[in-house]
C-alpha cells in the first residue's frame, strides 16, 4: 500500500485543476499539518446536488400524486370498482376513492404533475451528463467499478461483516469508496434510475403509442405504475442508508468533500486511523 495505490483510487483529482498541484504524493504521518486533498470532481459535485434537488421534488410531487389514488393494481387496468393488489393506509384526495377513511386530503395534482415532469426532465439531462462524462473520463472505471480482488467472496464478506459491526470506516475510505458502496452506487445509477424512468414512461399513453413494448413487457399499465412505486421506494431506502452512512462516517468531512471537493488529510486522519 503506497502512493500508487492511493492515487489509483482518487481518480477524480484529474478534474480538479487548481488544488491538485498542491497535494504532496504522500503525507508523512509525523507532520502535524492538515492538507486539502482532492476528492470529488466539480462535475460529480454539481450533478450530485442537482440530482438531490430533483429527487426531493420528484418525491414530494410523487407522494402528492399517489394521494389522489392510493390504490395499486396489477395488469392493464384497475379502478375504484376493481379489487386492488394493495392499498396504502392513507386517505385519498377524493371521497369516492375507497380507502376506508372518512376524510379527504386536498387535491394537489395540478402543480404536483407539473413539478414531477419538470424535475424528471432536469434529472434525466443531469444523469445523461454524468453518465456520458463518467464513461468518457473514466470516473466509473476508476472510482465505482470494484476491482477484481474486492469481488472475491472473502473480501465481500469481510466488508459486509465490518458494516454489520458498524465499524467506523478506515481513513482510506475518505478518499475512496469501499466495495459495498461501489456496488450500491452502480446499482442505483445503472439499474434503479433507468428502471424508474422506464416505468414512468410506461404509464404515458402517448409514449407507449410509439413504443408499446415499454409497457407490454412490464405486464400492463397498472403493473408499470405499481413497479414505479416500488422502485421509488427502493430509491428512498437508498437515500436513507446513504444519508445514514454519511452521518456515521463523519457528516462534516463527507459534506465538505461533496461541496468543496476536498477532504482534509494529515494529522486528524492519521490519529484516527492509528496510522
Amino acid at each position, binding site marked *: 500500500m503506497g502512493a500508487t495505490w492511493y492515487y489509483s483510487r482518487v481518480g477524480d483529482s484529474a478534474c480538479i485543476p487548481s488544488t491538485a498541484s498542491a497535494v504532496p504524493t504522500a503525507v508523512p504521518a509525523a507532520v502535524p499539518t492538515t492538507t486539502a486533498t482532492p476528492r470529488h470532481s466539480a462535475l460529480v459535485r454539481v450533478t450530485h446536488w442537482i440530482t438531490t434537488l430533483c429527487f426531493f421534488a420528484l418525491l414530494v410531487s410523487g407522494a402528492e400524486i399517489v394521494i389522489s*389514488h392510493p390504490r395499486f393494481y396489477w395488469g392493464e387496468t384497475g379502478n375504484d*370498482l376493481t379489487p386492488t393488489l394493495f392499498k396504502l393506509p392513507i386517505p385519498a384526495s377524493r371521497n369516492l376513492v375507497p380507502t376506508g377513511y372518512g376524510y379527504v386530503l386536498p387535491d394537489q395534482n395540478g402543480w404536483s404533475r*407539473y413539478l414531477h415532469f419538470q424535475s424528471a426532465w432536469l434529472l434525466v439531462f443531469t444523469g445523461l451528463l454524468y453518465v456520458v462524462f463518467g464513461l468518457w473520463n473514466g470516473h466509473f472505471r476508476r472510482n465505482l467499478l470494484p476491482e477484481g480482488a474486492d469481488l472475491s467472496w472473502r473480501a465481500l464478506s469481510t466488508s459486509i461483516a465490518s458494516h454489520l459491526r458498524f465499524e467506523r470506516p478506515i481513513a482510506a475510505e475518505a478518499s475512496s469508496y469501499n466495495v459495498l458502496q461501489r456496488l450500491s452506487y452502480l446499482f442505483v445509477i445503472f439499474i434503479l434510475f433507468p428502471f424508474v424512468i422506464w416505468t414512468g414512461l410506461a404509464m404515458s399513453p402517448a409514449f407507449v403509442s410509439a413504443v408499446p413494448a415499454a409497457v407490454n413487457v412490464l405486464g400492463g399499465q397498472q403493473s408499470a405504475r405499481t413497479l414505479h412505486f416500488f422502485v421509488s421506494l427502493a430509491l428512498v431506502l437508498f437515500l436513507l442508508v446513504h444519508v445514514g452512512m454519511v452521518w456515521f462516517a463523519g457528516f462534516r468531512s463527507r459534506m465538505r468533500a461533496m461541496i468543496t471537493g476536498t477532504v482534509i488529510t494529515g494529522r486528524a486522519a492519521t490519529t484516527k486511523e492509528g496510522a
Partner: protein
Amino acid sequence: MSEPSTREPSLRDLSRRKLITTGLAATAGVAGLGVAARLAQKYGLIPPDHGGIYGLGETLTYASQRLLTRHSLAREFSRSQISERPFPNEIEPPTDEFKRLQAGGFADWRLSISGLVARPASFSIDQLKSYPSRSQITMLQCEEGWSYIAEWIGVPLSQILQAVEVLPQARYVVYFSIEPDTWESIDMADALHPQTFLTYGMNGSELPVGHGGPLRLRVPRQVGYKNVKFITHLKVTDSLKGVGKGLGSASAEAGYAWYAGI
C-alpha cells in the same frame, strides 16, 4: 493502474485564443437556442401553457412527444380485455338544459362547429351516426392513476372536420361541454388522428350519461380529462390566445397541463 491526468491547468492557459473560442461557442449556443425556439414555434412544438416556472418541462414533454408520436396509434386491446366494471367518474349535477335534452332522448342535441371552416355546421347525434361508424378498444386512464378498457364507438373527428372543410391555417380544435366552464383543446395532430372519435357508443350500446353520453370526445393518447363529456361545440382556430385566458383549456387555467399525453 491508471494515473490521474498530469495536466495542470492554470490561469496561464486562459490565452486569448481560448477566450475567443469560448466567446464564439457561447454566441453559437445562444444563437442555436434562438433558432431552436423559432423552429419549435414554426413546427407547433410549443404548448399554450409554456409560460411560468413549469413551462420548460411542459415544452420538452410536448415537443418530444409530438416528434415521437405524431402518427403512432394508441394501444388497442382484445374484446376479452374490456373491463367488466368501467368506472364512470363523478359528473356535475346536470343542468336544466341537459335534463330537457335527456327527456327528449337527446334528439335535439346539437354539435355545432365554427371557426376556421369553409362551411360552419351543426350536427344531431343521428346525423353523426349517418357517417360510417368506427370502434376502438382502448384504455381510458385518469391522471389520478386509475383506468379501464372499453370499446368506444363513434365517428372519427377527422371525418367531420373534412365534411365542414377545415381551412389550411387551422392549428387547434377547441371543444366545449354542455357543463359550464368545461372545455379543452387539441392540436391538429390529435384532431386528425384516426383514433380521435366523436364517441356516441360504448361496449356495443349507447354511450351512458355517466361516461359522457350522448357525445364525448375520445382522445386515447391523452389522459382522462382531455376526453371531455357532453360535447356541444367545436371551434377550429389558428391560435388559442383569444380563447379563455389563452392557456388552451379550462384544466390549464385550473393548474393542470394542457397537453396530457404525459
